[in-house]
Structures are given as C-alpha cells and as structure tokens.
C-alpha cells in the first residue's frame, strides 16, 4: 500500500474541471501531473459565456439551495442522481464565494455580486462577468495552479495527449501519454482523473465547442471497457449560428437580460412563439424545450435584442455585441439576429458515482466528459459550476481513497506497458466522415427509431465494406483511432435507439411521451466484442423532488 507522499495523480485536461481537480489535490498536499494538448488559455471552458449558478440569495428573492436543486432536477427531467445534485447545489454558494476570494471580476453593483436570470430557473441565480464568464474563471484557476506549479506540487505537461489508461489487476495503474512535440509515448504511474470535456469531435463543424475537443479520449476509454451513461442526451442550444468551421453561440444571457425569440408571420408581423405558448417566461424555458419548438416550427427564428437598454449593452453584454457584429455583420442593438439550434453540450459521459469514481479503482472523471449533474437536459450556468465542483469532488475522492488504502498497488507501469496507438490515416478519412454524417443525421433534435436503426445498419455495412476494401479482413492494419470512434459512435446511436420515450433533449417522433418505465440511466459498455446496453431504473422513492 502506498501513501500520499509517493502517489502522483494524473489529471487529463487543463480546462476548468482539470484545473479544479489539480488545485484540489495540490491544496491537500497530493502531487499532480496535469496533462493537456493545449495550455489552459485554449480550453473550451474559455468559451463559456453566461455565468455560474449558485443560490447566493443576493437579489432579494429569497433563494435557497433547495430551489436550485429543484430547478436542476426538473430541468434534467428527473434523470440526474438527486444525491449528486444535492451536493452540487448545496456547495454552489461556497464554490462561487471561493472564486470571489480569488478575485474573479464578477459583475457587481455597490460592491455586491449581481446575479442574472437564466433559462429554467425561477430566481436570479447566475453570477457572471459580461458574457465571458468562462474566460475569467479559467484565468483565476490558472493563477492558482501556477502557485502550485512553483511549489513543485503540480507539474504541467502541455502538448501531451492522452492515449489510454493502463489497467492492471482491475485497477487503473497509470496512463499512456503521447508528446505532440517529440512524438514519443510514455507511461505515468498513479490514479487518473479524466477531465477531457465533451465529445464535440464526434460532430465536427456542428457544435459550439473547440476543434481541440476531438472526443478521442472518450472513445478510447469506451474501447477499454469504461462504462458510459446517458449518451443519447445531447443539448442543442437554441441560439447559435453557423460561422465558418463551427457554430457560434449567442449566450442565453441575451435572453436573461430581456431578449425575445420570434419569427416573421406571413404578413410580416412578429410572432413571439415562445411567449404565446409559455407565457412571459417563454424565452427562458429550458434549452431542450426551446430547441424542440424551433425544430417543430421549421421557420427562421430571430432573437430580438433591440429593446435592451444602453446600460445593459455597456455593462453586461458589450463583448457579446462585438462578437455578433464581427461574425454576423448584424448590430443586435438595431436589428434582430437570425438564430438556429446547434449542438452545445453532452449531458451523458463516463459513468461516475457520487464521488466521481468511474467504475475502475483509480479512475475518476469530472466535467463535461462525465455523466453527473444534468440528467436529460442541462440548465445554463450549471456547466461551469459542475466542472469546478466536479473536479474538486474527484480530487477529494482520490485523497479519501489514498487514505483508505483503496489502491492495492497494481504494480507500476513500465515501458513494457506502452502499446502503439495509431491515428486515422488519410485512407480512413472517408469512412470517418461517413460515420460522422450518419451519427449527426440520427441524432438531430427530433429522432425516430427507423432513422436510428438505419444509421446503425449503414455504419455497420459501410464499415464492413471498408474493412474488405482496405484489406483489414486479411490482417492489414486499421487504425486504433478509427476502431475506437466506430465503437463509440455505435454506443451513442444505440443509447438513442433503446430509449423508447421522449425526455429532455431526447425527443422521439415515434415515442412522444415521457414514460415512467424509462426513468433510468442508460449504460453502455464495450465488452471486448460488442456493446452491452442496460437501462438502470432510478428507484421510485428517489424522485428528487417532493410532489
């Protein structure tokens, strides 16, 4: 058994979840290796705009963690683990106050933090810095990590890519890492916290995320037998627009500050369709609801920000205005902005327990790569919170597990444990994009069983043809990356096919109702030859919200 003086923890990813995990460990005296392809300034966390939720109760609305809990559970259609959400929402005020003590420039009035309205929440609960909240939080946590780098507790490995975990005696004994500068691989001993973000790279060009977020870490872990949960729940954010190479997000803060969604009726007048259907709070319904309405509508929708006051633009959204003008050549102060839904967040991910343990001793996951707090639909402002709290929670679990001697000491990985890992070759680009297209077609906002089954059949057929054409059936090599992506693609499609109901971000044309017998977590796992699937029903008593 080892104690914490010799164990070094490997954190994969230097966005907010990874930074928070590394800091949490360092503050508890545990050494950390922080691996990332890019420096923290390039992480997707920097793109988070609107804010971070916590029931600080500073807006005179009598807010409480309990209401934050209720809104989160309801927004997630009662699919999140209530115990996890309880922890998250109870600890949220301390998370934000901690960030405040780090000097995060939250918007203030008369010296006090101001919170704004956000979708799916009854109270003003979102603390923010213009619409660049992610950026200021990354800056603050990067500063903190820098302090621990200086003391030698955290060592950063930028330009290092995760390839696989080393499993020995059913324990995660370490990690294999590829150095993108020297093109060499190495194994590092110790527990592993995965904080690799969402799976944007499975949907290239169709998400608001970064190109650095390839989804490969998740696909590789899936291939290694790590369990994934709720992969069918993919959030389409209602207000995005296509720019070259990706989707650009127009923050929900724009609606939190008074923006209204409408379409032009045939006579040219405005139809505020969300308000007509859902009342005055219509524009701030949860994202899944609005995106679904827009998909059903089938018309060009606009976001009307022309009634926002001069002060609101100057003090709260000036950066958003600049961005819209730069990329869309529209001044949102003067004219409505055309918007449409785009993939924004993955609620599902690596299956974790309340302590962010990922099913294999020594393996943990936090942030968007983990299935944790958001159920069937994430509320705006809960992702920054979930990433920072989740990273910290995983760090605490590692420290607890070390203290309890949970790691049997599977044996240090050495050079013999290094396995080659091959990446997609030019000859495989075609089949890769074929799979991506089928995946995207199957997993639109509105899905149906026939389309999903078709996508699976076409991918399997296409993949088999490719194996024959490329000679893989005669023992010629096909890349590890392609195999990992193939399996993970099928797992996502299978999760969507098997959930024969509509709930949150998963809308089925053929099963339009939410069904009690599907109130459960869908779990997929690669068993070495095929995908195992099961639905784990959440017990009735565990409703999360008192009726």
């Amino acid at each position, binding site marked *: 058994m080892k104690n914490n003086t010799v164990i070094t923890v490997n954190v994969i990813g230097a966005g907010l979840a990874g930074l928070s995990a590394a800091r949490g460990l360092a503050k508890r005296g545990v050494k950390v290796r922080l691996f990332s392809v*890019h*420096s923290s*300034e*390039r*992480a*997707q966390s*920097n*793109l988070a705009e609107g804010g971070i939720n916590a029931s600080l109760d500073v807006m005179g609305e009598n807010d409480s963690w309990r209401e934050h809990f209720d809104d989160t559970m309801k927004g997630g259609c009662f699919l999140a683990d209530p115990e996890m959400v309880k922890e998250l929402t109870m600890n949220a005020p301390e998370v934000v106050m901690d960030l*405040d*003590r*780090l*000097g995060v*420039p*939250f*918007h*203030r009035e008369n*010296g006090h933090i101001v919170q704004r309205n956000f979708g799916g929440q009854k109270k003003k609960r979102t603390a923010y*810095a*213009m619409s*660049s909240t992610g*950026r*200021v939080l990354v*800056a603050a946590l990067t*500063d*903190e990590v*820098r*302090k621990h*780098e*200086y003391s030698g507790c955290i060592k*950063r490995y*930028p*330009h290092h890519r995760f390839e696989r975990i080393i499993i020995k005696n059913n324990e995660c004994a370490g990690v294999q890492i590829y150095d993108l*500068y020297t093109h060499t691989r190495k194994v590092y001993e110790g527990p592993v916290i995965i904080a690799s973000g969402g799976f944007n790279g499975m949907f290239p060009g169709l998400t608001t995320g*970064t*190109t*650095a977020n390839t989804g490969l870490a998740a696909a590789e872990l899936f291939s290694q037998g790590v369990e994934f949960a709720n992969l069918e729940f993919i959030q389409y954010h209602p207000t995005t627009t296509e*720019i*070259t*190479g*990706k989707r*650009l997000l127009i923050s929900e803060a724009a609606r939190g500050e008074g923006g209204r969604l409408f379409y032009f009726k045939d006579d040219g007048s405005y139809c505020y369709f969300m308000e007509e259907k859902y009342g005055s709070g219509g524009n701030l319904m949860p994202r899944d609801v609005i995106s679904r309405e827009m998909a059903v509508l089938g018309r060009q929708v606009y976001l009307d920000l022309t009634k926002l006051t001069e002060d609101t633009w100057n003090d709260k959204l000036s950066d958003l205005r*600049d*961005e819209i003008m730069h*990329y869309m050549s529209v001044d949102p102060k003067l004219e409505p902005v055309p918007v449409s839904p785009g993939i924004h967040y993955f609620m599902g991910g690596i299956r974790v327990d309340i302590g962010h343990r990922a099913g294999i001793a020594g393996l943990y996951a936090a942030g968007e790569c983990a299935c944790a707090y958001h159920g069937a639909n994430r509320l705006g402002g809960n992702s920054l919170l979930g990433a920072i709290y989740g990273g910290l929670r995983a760090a605490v679990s590692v420290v607890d597990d070390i203290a309890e001697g949970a790691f049997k000491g599977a044996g240090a990985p050495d050079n013999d444990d290094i396995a080659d890992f091959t990446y997609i070759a030019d000859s495989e680009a075609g089949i890769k994009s074929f799979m991506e297209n089928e995946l995207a077609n199957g997993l639109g906002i509105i899905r149906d069983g026939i389309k999903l089954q078709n996508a699976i059949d076409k991918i399997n057929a296409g993949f088999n043809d490719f194996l024959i054409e490329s000679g893989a059936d005669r023992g010629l090599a096909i890349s590890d990356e392609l195999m990992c992506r193939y399996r993970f693609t099928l797992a996502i499609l299978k999760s969507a096919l098997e959930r024969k109901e509509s709930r949150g971000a998963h809308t089925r044309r053929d099963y339009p109702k939410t069904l009690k017998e599907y109130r459960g977590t869908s779990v997929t796992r690669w068993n070495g030859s095929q995908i195992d699937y099961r639905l784990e029903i959440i017990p009735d008593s565990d409703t999360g919200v008192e009726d």
Partner: protein
Amino acid sequence: MKKVLHIRRQKAGDSNAYWEDFTYEYKEADTVATALMTLPVVWEHSCLQKRCGACAMVINGTPHLACDTCLSDLKGERVVIEPLRKFPVVEDLLVDRSSMMNTLREMELWLNSDAVPDGEKTAFEASKCLQCGLCLEVCPNFYAGGKFGGMAAMAPAVRFLNKAPKEQQPELSRAYNKYVYEGCGKSLACRNVCPAGIDIEKLLVKSSAAAVWKNFKNL
C-alpha cells in the same frame, strides 16, 4: 474564388524550412483557419472564434489569428503564411510559446491570500488576454527567454495589482518593474494587434501608475 497559400514549413525545429504552395477555393466567409483545416499542415487551433489565441501566426507579414483573418479581406491571390518568429518552431506553423507561461511563473503571479474586491472593470479587461503572443511578435524589445515579458505579462499582472492584498503589493510591484516596466521601450507597436481588443495603452498607463508610482487608487 481562389487563393494560393504560400506556407513556410518545417518538419522539426532543427530541420530546414521550405515553402509550399496550396491552392484553396474559398467562400465569402472563409478565414485562413478554414483553409488550413483542409491542408496537411501542422498548426495549433481550438475555438475558431478568437477566444482562445491558439491560431496565432504571421499572415502577409503581420501577426494575426488565422480564425480572425478573412481570405476575402486579403489583397491579391497569394497569401504568405509563416509561424510566429519570436518563438521556437516545433513543426510547420506550430511554435512553442511556453516561455510566456514561464515568465508568469517567474513573476509569481498568484494570490498569497484573499483578493481585495475592487476595480473589476480593469480586471475584466485584463482577463481578456489570450496569451496568444501577437503583441510580442511586433514588439521591438521582446525575445523569447529574455527577462522582458511584454504586454502578455503586463495584462495578467494588472489583475494582481488590482486585487492582491496590501502585503503582496511590494513584491508584485518589483516583479512588474523587472519583467514589464524596465524592458518596455514604449514604442506601442503592440497597440493595434490585440485580437481580444484590449486597450493596451490605457491598461499600461494604469498598471504603471499602480506598480511604479504606487497610485493604486487610479486602477
């Protein structure tokens, strides 16, 4: 519409550079980043919306983010693309900017105790710095590995001059003087290149006032 991308390539930092031309058919909104995505050239990219600073490079002789440079805005058919010259090349357009992070570490830019909440507007402005290095590329005083950290060190330092507790201020002022103030020749060549739109001149005046003349109230 087509452009010929004339790209300076290099297999490794210690190998010889060579130039290669790629023809690219472009659409109205395409940026240099859009074009590079289709080419077998190594470069750093992440957000594609000028919020991360990854894709900094030299385009037609001046430093830009590739995602912030529309092909249709560039005159002529030929577009000359080079890696940033102030940093060691790793491969093609990919450079090693770790010296920037090292400088921030040497300056000991972190809080020793709780922040003093004040002047969040200045702190917010300074937080916008992407650590992309474009301002260093045009700076006549900066070289990688040198003592002078340039405006990429000034911006993060401002956040601390602003929020650090009183006891830490003398140390921070010393670091600011050593890594920013003493090395800056005030050429202000960096004034117009910041992709995050930071008003460098204004920030510099404020931070120097605070660090050098201890005029914290003006922050």
